[in-house]
C-alpha cells in the first residue's frame, strides 16, 4: 500500500505484480532522531453538565426584570424626592443606601459560603490524586477553617505538617479533624432527631409530619455545615443539599444507610424509644434526620464521599 501507486506495471513507480511480500524491519535511526516519542494525543476537556434548562433562563429573566425595575424606580424615587426638598432627598438616599448595603452584605455572605464549599471540593480532589505539597497547603487552610471545633488544633496542624504522603495526610485529617467533626455532626443529628420525634408526636395531623421534618432537615444541614466550617447562606445551602442528595444516592451514602443506624440511634436515646413506642411515624422521622446529619457530614468533608 504505502508508496505503491496505482499505474501500469511497466511504469517505474508501479509495483511489479508478483512482488515478494515485504518483511518487517527495524531501521537505523535517522539523523536527528528524537530521544523520546510523544504521540499525537491531546484529549480535550469533557463538557461538564450544563444544567441551564429553560426554566433557569425563565427564572433568570424574571429576576433581572424585577431587579432592573426595582433599581430604576429607586433612582427615580430619589430624584423625585430631591425635586421636592433636599432634606427629603437625603432621607430617601439614606434609606435606599442602607437597603442596598444589607443586600450587598447578604450577597457577600453567600459568596464566602460558596468559596468555602469550593475550597473543600478542591481539597477533596487533591486528596484523591494530587501532589503532596498542594494537598498539604489546602489541608492546612481547611484546618484553619474548622479549628474552632477542634479539641487540639495545634496537634492537627502538626500532624498535617508531618505527613510524608497523601495517604498519611488523609489519615492525619481523619484522626485529628474529620473524626471529631463527624462526632459533632452525629450529636447535632441526635438533637434534631429527638426534636423531630417529639414534634411529630405532638403534631395534630400526620400531614404535618413531613413539613416539620423537612424544616428541621434544612436547619440540620446548615448546622452540620457550620460544624465543618461552612456557614452557608440560602444559595449555598441549596447547593449543599444537592450535594447531600448525590452523596446519599452515590456510593458513600449507601454504606451509611445500611449501617443499622436506627438501632444505634435508638439505643443511645431512651427518650426517643418511648416516643417511638407511642407514635409510629416519630421514629422514622428521627432516624431520617439522624441519617441526614451523617450524610451531610460526608458531603461536607474533604475525605471520602463520592466525587462530585
Amino acid at each position, binding site marked *: 500500500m504505502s508508496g505503491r501507486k496505482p499505474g501500469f506495471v511497466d511504469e517505474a513507480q508501479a509495483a511489479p505484480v508478483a512482488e515478494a511480500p515485504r518483511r*518487517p524491519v527495524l*531501521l*537505523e535511526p535517522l539523523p536527528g*532522531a528524537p530521544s*523520546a516519542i510523544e504521540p499525537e494525543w491531546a484529549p480535550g476537556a469533557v463538557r461538564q453538565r450544563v444544567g441551564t434548562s429553560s426554566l433557569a433562563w425563565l427564572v433568570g429573566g424574571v429576576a433581572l426584570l424585577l431587579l432592573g425595575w426595582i433599581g430604576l424606580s429607586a433612582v427615580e424615587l430619589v430624584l423625585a424626592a430631591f425635586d421636592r426638598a433636599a432634606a427629603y432627598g437625603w432621607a430617601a438616599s439614606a434609606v435606599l443606601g442602607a437597603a442596598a448595603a444589607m443586600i450587598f452584605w447578604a450577597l457577600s455572605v453567600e459568596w464566602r459560603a460558596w468559596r468555602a464549599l469550593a475550597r473543600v471540593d478542591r481539597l477533596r480532589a487533591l486528596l484523591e490524586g494530587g501532589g503532596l505539597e498542594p494537598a498539604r497547603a489546602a489541608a492546612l487552610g481547611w484546618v484553619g477553617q474548622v479549628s474552632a471545633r477542634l479539641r487540639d488544633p495545634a496537634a492537627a496542624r502538626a500532624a498535617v505538617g508531618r505527613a510524608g504522603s497523601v495517604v498519611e495526610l488523609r489519615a492525619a485529617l481523619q484522626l485529628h479533624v474529620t473524626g471529631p467533626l463527624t462526632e459533632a455532626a452525629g450529636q447535632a443529628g441526635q438533637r434534631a432527631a429527638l426534636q423531630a420525634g417529639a414534634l411529630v408526636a405532638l403534631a395534630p395531623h400526620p400531614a404535618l409530619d413531613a413539613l416539620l421534618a423537612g424544616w428541621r432537615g434544612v436547619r440540620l444541614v446548615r448546622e452540620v455545615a457550620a460544624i465543618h466550617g461552612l456557614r452557608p447562606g440560602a444559595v449555598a445551602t441549596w447547593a449543599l443539599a444537592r450535594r447531600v442528595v448525590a452523596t446519599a444516592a452515590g456510593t458513600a451514602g449507601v454504606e451509611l444507610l445500611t449501617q443499622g443506624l436506627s438501632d444505634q440511634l435508638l439505643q443511645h436515646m431512651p427518650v426517643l424509644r418511648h416516643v417511638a413506642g407511642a407514635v409510629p411515624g416519630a421514629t422514622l422521622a428521627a432516624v431520617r434526620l439522624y441519617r441526614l446529619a451523617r450524610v451531610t457530614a460526608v458531603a461536607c468533608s474533604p475525605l471520602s464521599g463520592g*466525587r462530585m
Partner: protein
Amino acid sequence: MAGLLDTLSAPLRRVGGVAWEAVERAVNEERIHLAVTGLSRAGKTVFITSLVENLLALAGGRDTLPELRARLEQGGANRLVSVRLLPSGSLALPRFDHEGHVAALAGREASWPGRTEDLAALSLEIVLERGSAVGRVLGPRRIRLDILDYPGEWLLDLPLIGMSFAGWAEAMLARLRTPARAGAAEGFLRFLDLFDPEALADEALIRRGHALYREALEALRGRMGLRYLQPGRFLNPGPRGEVPLLWFFPVALRGSPRPGSAGALLAARFEAYREEMRAGFFEGPFRDFDRQILLVDVLGALHAGRAAFEDTADAIADLCRGLRGAPGWLGWGRSPIARVAVVATKADHVPALRREALLHLLRALTERGLEGRPGGNSDGVSLHVAASIHATRDGKVPLGGRDVEVVLGVPVGEDRARPYFVGDVPPGWPPEGFWSGDYFELPVFRPPRIEAERGVGVPHIGLDGILVALLGDLL
C-alpha cells in the same frame, strides 16, 4: 407484649436494613464480570491498566475516550458521575497493582509491566446519571466492573480440563512431532524413546523427563514464538512454584497403566493438576463471565512465522470452545457470554493506513474460534484494532527506493527513535507464498512518557470503541 416487641424490633430493623440494601442494589447496581482473555504476552495487563487509567481520567473531566463520552452524552450533558477503584474489601485474591503499573509507566525510565505471575483482581465502579426524568427519581446507576488479570499461559489449560491423560498426551506428542517443532523438542523426544511407562516409577527419571519437556516448551515459546503450549503452569508456575503435581510430561500409553508404574504416576499427576486448575482457577475466580475481551497479538504471531501463526489460531479456537462451555467439554454449564470483543493489540506498530488490513487478518485468525457461537457467528461479537498504550508516531522514510509508511518509536534500551516498517500485512489468512521461514520478534518500544500527575489518562488507540461495543447496552 411491649417487651416482646422491644426484643423483636432490633432484628426486624436489621432485616429491614438488609432488605432495603438488597432492593437498592437490585435497582441501581449492575455487576459485570469482564473476562480479559488472551494468550501470554497478548497485552492483558497493559490493557487493564490503560483502560482503568483512562476511565478515571474521563470521570475527572478529560476527554480520553471520545466514543464512550459521546455515548454517555445526552442533550449536551455528560451522564458520567464518577469512576472509582473499589477498595479491595475481604478479597481472597491478590489485588491488581494498578497504581504500581501506572507508576512504572510514568517513571523516569518508563517500563512495561513484567510477566504476570499470579491472579490479580480489580473492581471498578462507574456511576451514571439515568437518562430519563422518571429514572432520575431512582438515583444514579452504578455499574460494577470486576476484572481479573492472570498469567496468559494458564488460560491454555482450559482445553485440557475435559481431557484424559492418554488423550492429552497423544494430542501433545502429535504436535511436538510436527516438522516445525521437532527441532526444538529434540531432547525430549529422544528421552521418550528410552522411557518405558510400564516400568516401575522412578522419581529421578520422571523429573528428568519433566525438565526436558519443560525445556522443549520454553524453546518453542522463546525460539519460535509458539503459544499453544500445555500445561500452562510449566511455563509459569505461579506463586506456589514447584510442586510435585507438576512433575509429569506427555507419554504414549498402551492401555491403562499398571498401578505403581511410571505411566500410572504420570497420569495421576496429570489428573491432580487438571483438578487443581479446574477448582482453583476455571471454576473459581474465572467462572461466570458476562462479557469477554479476547486480546490477540496478531502481529507477533504473523512475524513469528507460519508455525506460530497457525499455532495461535489453534489455541484461540480451542480456547473459545472452552469458554463457550460446549456440553461435554467442561463439566459445568455456563451462562452464555453476552458480548465478545476480539481485539488485535499493539496496533501502534502499524501505521494508521494499514490498520484496516490488520482487522481483516484478525478476522481470519479468530474465525474458527468464533464460529459456532450460540446465536450465530457474529452475534454480539465485534472486532477491533487497538493499542492500549500508543508508544509510536506515524512517519515516512525512504526504503528500497521509495517512501514507505513507518512508525517511529524508541526501542527499549536505546535512546533514539528508530523507524519500524511493519512489512506486508495480508488482509486475510496469509497465502502460501507469504511465509519466509524466518522468525522476527516484534520490537518493544518504550512506552511514552505519561504525566506522573494522576487523572490525565494514557495515550491509546481504539479503547473507547471496545468499551462501547462491549458495554454499550448497559450505558
